[in-house]
């Protein structure tokens, strides 16, 4: 089995595990973690795709994409966690 195929298989598996966590779990924290696992799957695929031309220097574009993607994922996770804590601990005066 080629290395590239391994990477693709593992990323798709991670994505599916995350998607399952997001859709099947009721617990909000687990669902947010599921989203992050989905994201990791995509990022792994992108990092692996940098080695498109064997024997040459890796392609920098997917690395730029993964960096951007991580920033987006962090902000989205922060927002989701903030909302979760607000829902679980409703403040007075509601």
């Amino acid at each position, binding site marked *: 089995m080629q290395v590239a195929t391994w990477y693709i298989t593992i990323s798709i598996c991670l*994505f599916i595990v995350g998607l399952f966590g*997001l859709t099947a779990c009721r617990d909000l924290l687990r669902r947010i973690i599921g989203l992050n696992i989905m994201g990791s799957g995509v990022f792994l695929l992108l990092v692996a795709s940098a080695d498109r031309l064997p024997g040459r220097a890796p392609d920098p574009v997917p690395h730029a994409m993964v960096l951007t993607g991580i920033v987006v994922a962090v902000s989205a996770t922060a927002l*989701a966690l903030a909302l979760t804590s607000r829902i679980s601990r409703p403040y007075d005066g*509601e």
Partner: protein
Amino acid sequence: MNLSTAATADVPWAVWAIALPLGAAAAAFVSRRNLAWLGVIASLAVSATVTGLTWQVWRFGPRRYSVGGWGAPLGIDLYADGLSVLMLLMTAIIGVCVSVYAVGYFADRSAEANDDMGVAHRDNFWPLWLFLWAALNALFLSGDIFNLYVTLELITLSAVGLVTLAGSLTANAAALRYLLAALAGSLLYLLGVALLYASYGMLDIASLGRTMTPGSVSAAAIALMTVGLALKTALFPLHFWLPPAHANAPPPVSAVLSALVVKASFYLLLRLWFDAFPNVIALNAGSLLGILGAAAILWGSIQALVARRLKTLVAYSTVAQLGYLFLVFTLATPGETSTAWSGGVLFAISHACAKASMFLAVGSIQHAAGHDRIADLDGIGRQLPLTFFAVALASVSLMGLPPSGAFLAKWMLLEAALETGHVWLVVVILAGGLLAAGYLFRILGQAFTPSATAATFFVPRSMEGAALALALVALSLGLFSAPLLDLLRLGEIHVGNTAAAIMS
């Protein structure tokens, strides 16, 4: 061409259309003073840049601009053609009206007890709304699929923030549900992007259109991106997150979400299917989207018929009306600009104006009455004549009666359905119009039922005026559709190039 024309032709309006709302959002976030003035002035300035860009595209055709002179693939290319300019104009018109409405809504303290909103929440409206506007403009101007992912996420983050401004527990729960659904949609889309980049090594939509070949990876990428964007556009049966989020947000936010945010992901889907995927798409896939669209029309309308709250009714009406947009994928052939394609875009613009007006007017009603239970709204129509005039005019557009833009758009869709032999879609389109009349008359009928109570209601003029202005725009779109359709055809150059490249 004289010298001054040459000079204005070189102004990078596309960049300003993104940088200006972004800068204004940052300023609003920092300053916290005179936010209303800042917001309205920024909205007018953004509209001016969009007008400048429209003029450029009208005069010189589709334009491409490399930000910072870097160029693709490492830099970011902005691309503007007829379709993107029309979307920007739609956003600008609705943006100005929503901003004017928001000034009145957030300044009016008379109904403070009715809203759960604290002062801190009010101040957050302007930065979030201007961020959202910048993200929308960036999406309509982006030409590469990864940059489009980033703009999608920016839209999601600011839109979810806006929903939480309502402050109630229900609104926060709806916002979280919306966030999780939208993030799942974006990640499905991003996985598609990763697959496309891994197999073709490019991100530009036009280049992908020339290079993509049928195969299992292409098919998987198309499926992932389509499902992700359909989830974000709330296509039946992936619409579960929309009604709670749109019905519980503050009125100016509901208007923006229903009118613009769902259109952004639809626009992207349209771009991908007709510019990037035309020689790879299987015909059955388009039929499937059409069937789901038809189901959305029927299901959304039925839910609107039985809704108890006014805003829930309007939110389900959005689910139904979004269904019409997906009929385009059945009726139009990828790779060419056809009647159905133009009809779909016109429908999107017309629905945006009418639905924004509807949500603003319904927001005024809720603001004045303190609730939006349909059964308890007897006789409110006489108290708020201007608002109900807006509701009636917006209803004409939503039902698709002449002379509204929606009438013309539905006519174009019907024509395409008859031409391509999809008689069942003709039935669905006509039934959708009847059902819309059914649920919209529920509002008007209840509001003009004589009531015993003699409560007086008051709504600031700017709120009533903004809703009415948008209703008038939606109604008159049918009269001014010729220049709009001409502008839309400026994208044909782009699509035509792609088609020609496929043939050679």
